[in-house]
């Protein structure tokens, strides 16, 4: 999976997902987290995923991000199958193409903000500097603080800086603004849209915040393990124009 997205024909879908299912077996209970999801995303698209709690959004994002494996179905990134990829292939995929922002901040507690970003820039192929990435999320003056010294929102922005620093082809965000007030949330969204625009990263954002849908190209609604509806926004709002 060495090729970058740029070498592929411009209009090809970045993700092509067919009949994706995931069943968790916990002892005697089977939980059907995903039931046959079909999905496509084009290069540079900004997609917002909405849906009730437990509808399978995180599961979906984890699988297309190469963090988890599907039970059945097919997921393709460009012309590479994710569902048939082995461990090493998935690792390469995550390292070279994916930027992740988790529901929980997931920073390494023993590293400063800058060093948490460095963790990624050191193994990426065309990264920004950690300083650049942190400046993009407005944390240039907190770079040498440890996670425990940062607020929840600041920790989440470090996580975003870490995700965008590698200039990923896809940016997967699981409730990036969930824990943030609206002003900080907007800063985070601005950072996401900027990266989406500047590096053309296909961006998927899970959120419970319906206001955010307006900045997307497309909105995907999950319920009960499948995509139940989709809307395309005729015009995207700027991040600075939304509020909640």
């Amino acid at each position: 999976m060495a090729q970058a997205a740029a070498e592929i024909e411009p209009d090809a879908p970045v993700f092509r997902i067919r009949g994706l299912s995931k069943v968790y077996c916990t002892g005697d209970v089977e939980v059907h987290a995903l039931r046959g999801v079909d999905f496509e995303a084009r290069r540079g698209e900004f997609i917002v995923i909405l849906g009730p709690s437990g509808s399978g959004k995180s599961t979906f994002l984890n699988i297309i991000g190469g963090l988890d494996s599907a039970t059945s179905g097919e997921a393709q990134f460009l012309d590479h199958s994710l569902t048939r990829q082995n461990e090493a292939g998935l690792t390469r995929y995550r390292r070279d193409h994916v930027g992740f922002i988790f529901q929980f901040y997931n920073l390494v507690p023993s590293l400063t903000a800058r060093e948490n970003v460095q963790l990624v820039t050191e193994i990426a192929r065309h990264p920004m500097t950690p300083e650049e990435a942190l400046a993009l999320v407005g944390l240039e003056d907190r770079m040498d603080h440890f996670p425990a010294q940062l607020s929840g929102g600041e920790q989440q922005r470090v996580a975003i800086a870490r995700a965008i620093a590698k200039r990923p082809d896809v940016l997967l965000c699981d409730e990036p603004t969930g824990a943030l007030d609206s002003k900080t949330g907007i800063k985070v969204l601005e950072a996401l849209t900027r990266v989406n625009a500047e590096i053309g990263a296909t961006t998927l954002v899970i959120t419970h915040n319906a206001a955010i849908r307006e900045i997307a190209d497309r909105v995907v609604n999950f319920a009960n393990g499948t995509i139940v509806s989709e809307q395309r926004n005729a015009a995207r709002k700027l991040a600075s124009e939304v509020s909640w």
Partner: protein
Amino acid sequence: MRALHRKLLRDLMRLWPQALAIALVMAAGVATLILGVGAYDSLSTTRAQYYEANRFADVFATVTRAPKSLKDDIARIDGVSAAETRISKIALADVEGMIEPASVLLTSLPEFGEQVLNRIYLRTGRVPDPEAAGEAVASEGFAAVHGLRPGDTVRVLINGRQREIVLSGTALSPEFIYALGPGDLMPDARRFGILWMPEGALAAAYDLEGAFSSVSLKLVPGNNEARVIEALDGMLERYGGSGAHGRKDQVSHSFLDAELQQLKAMSRVLPPIFLVVAAFLVNMTLSRLIALEREQIGLLKAMGYSSWAVARHYIGFVTLIALLGIVIGLAAGSWLGYGMTKLYAAFFSFPFLVFSRNPAIYVIAAAVTYGAAVLGALKAVSDVAWLSPAVAMSPPAPQRYRKLFSGTIGMPRMVRQSSVIIMRHLTHWPWRTASGILGIAMAVAILVGSLWSFGSIDHMVDVTFFRSDRQDASINFASARPVSALYETRRLPGVLRAEPYRAVAVKLRKGHVERRLSLVGKPPDAELSRVLSGDLQPVALPPDGLVISSAVAEILGLRVGETVEIEVLEGRRQRLLQPVSAIITGYLGLTAYMDLEQMNRMLDEGAMISGTHIAIDESLQAELFTALKATPTANFIALQYVALQKFRETLAQNIVIMVTVYAVLAGIIAFGVVYNFARISLSEQGREMASLRVLGFTRGEVSGLLTGELAVVVIIAQPLGWLIGYSFAWAMAEGFTSELYRVPLVINREVYAYASLVVLAAAMVSGLIVRRRIDRLDMIEVLKTRE
């Protein structure tokens, strides 16, 4: 520096007390191996070089009187490379400042030229001048205890005549590294020494002009010792030869051998156990420590680090800890080993010391430790690495706690909720709980394995000195005397009771196996020097047959009722057959007893005795000793209380030092393990504890959960530790056993108590440390940084 490296260093700094504790456990394991093996190797190398440099003989024989012309014939025996004849006699000596008589072994130095074999190593002064009558070189130990220096004199009762001997110097000899008086159990330099004198002086005093009483041989390497001994015996028989023997039966050599064998047993049994236990503990601790990093491993993988890169990171982490442990261990081990070797070398009075460092041991110690650490890290990482990063990043599933008391309605009311939580923790991670119990049990076990020998020594002392040989002193005659000598002894001042004994040098043989030993005859109803049965009850010697110790029985493969061949090595040199009538317990030496009357009938030399065991009235002790010093027929007085004291001292030197070092190292291991167990449990449950605190639990209640868990594990571990410790002790006792010592496996209850006490103390201290951390637990920080 890479961010990952920085994480590694910061994690190490954050965990420094734990890292240090783990490193110390490793260090203790490494150090025991290095010091144990190092001390043994150094001492045996030193002995070998000392023997070589001073040409310690291979075969020894004594005769009553043989012409010197025989020497050339002896030297021509096939396989003999050198032969030297000497005169050697034991005599009583009167040393200033000593009320009881001492004994000296008078040994001749060749009239012309240097010694060929058993060369003395002159420490002070010079060799005696053959022209100046009455000069001698004294053994250094004897001279040192009595403060004798060249120019000082000793009065010796030589062949019935008091002679003043002037010391010309002091010396050491490979032949008398251990100078053991005849009939003594333990060497005592105060009461037994060696005087090397010109041959002429001794020959004149003992009427041995042109004759010798002792011969030593050096053999061509790889030669058959048994064949040479047979040939030599054949030549010496008609001169009153009492049977030649090899180094194995040379007193000093066999004693030293037994000591070295004990050291070897200690170095070959205990240190590997330590090393393996330490490795196991390190493995367990590190894998638990890294299991705590589960979420971070998941995160690193989510960011695109490969499993191998993550594994390398944690291997780096344990490598630094291992490096610290190994460096401390190697340094401490070398240092302790060197110190211990020097102590032993001084004790054995080796004139020089070869400190051997076996690089292989260093490599093995480092490799085992490092391997265990890396395996521990790999195990933990791989446990997490096969999880998908999504799963790894969420905390380990606490989903299925067993319902501990389901079905027993009312139970939860009686059992406090906190006990339920503790039991759930313990049963939910059975492997973790089991390895914790096993780890702490191992700590108890190595303590038991280090400390047990004290009980055994006490038992040996009790049996040997208070139940079996209860006499105050033994008087050893220069040669066998008629029974009437017993009545003379009884008339000496202060003698309350006297019992006769007869001792003859014999070879016991069954099939191809034979052993030299001293066959002792005693009256059947002896009160002082008694024979004990297997269950340590005094037994009357049966009117016929031989009573042998279990050691003899094992070596010769003898059972009660079987016949053994006795070759008498003195007097009329009969070869006789006798049945074994009983097998008894004996811890020191190879022993065989007979009824005195039956023995005298068997030897057919009349009613003779070799000496007497006596009980003394202490207030008349001085008078008794004065009388004994003037007794020309006695050549050695063995004092039981001195023997006991020497026995304790010798063992103190040999075992106590080593055991103390091991016990301290075991203590360090015990503490490291318990501390880490408590600390890791705290990390594992930190979040849960913070949540409980948020819910309104008090500090005491929250830390009670953890200390309660620690208490349960530590208590369950104790009996298991005793059991494992018993098996360690058994392995060591087997290793200690030599022909000279049988070490009974007696483990006092105190040993178990001490071991448990150390571990409980470690648990208590660890519990307090953990409690203090819980008291300072920052709820918000814990809840904020994880997740």
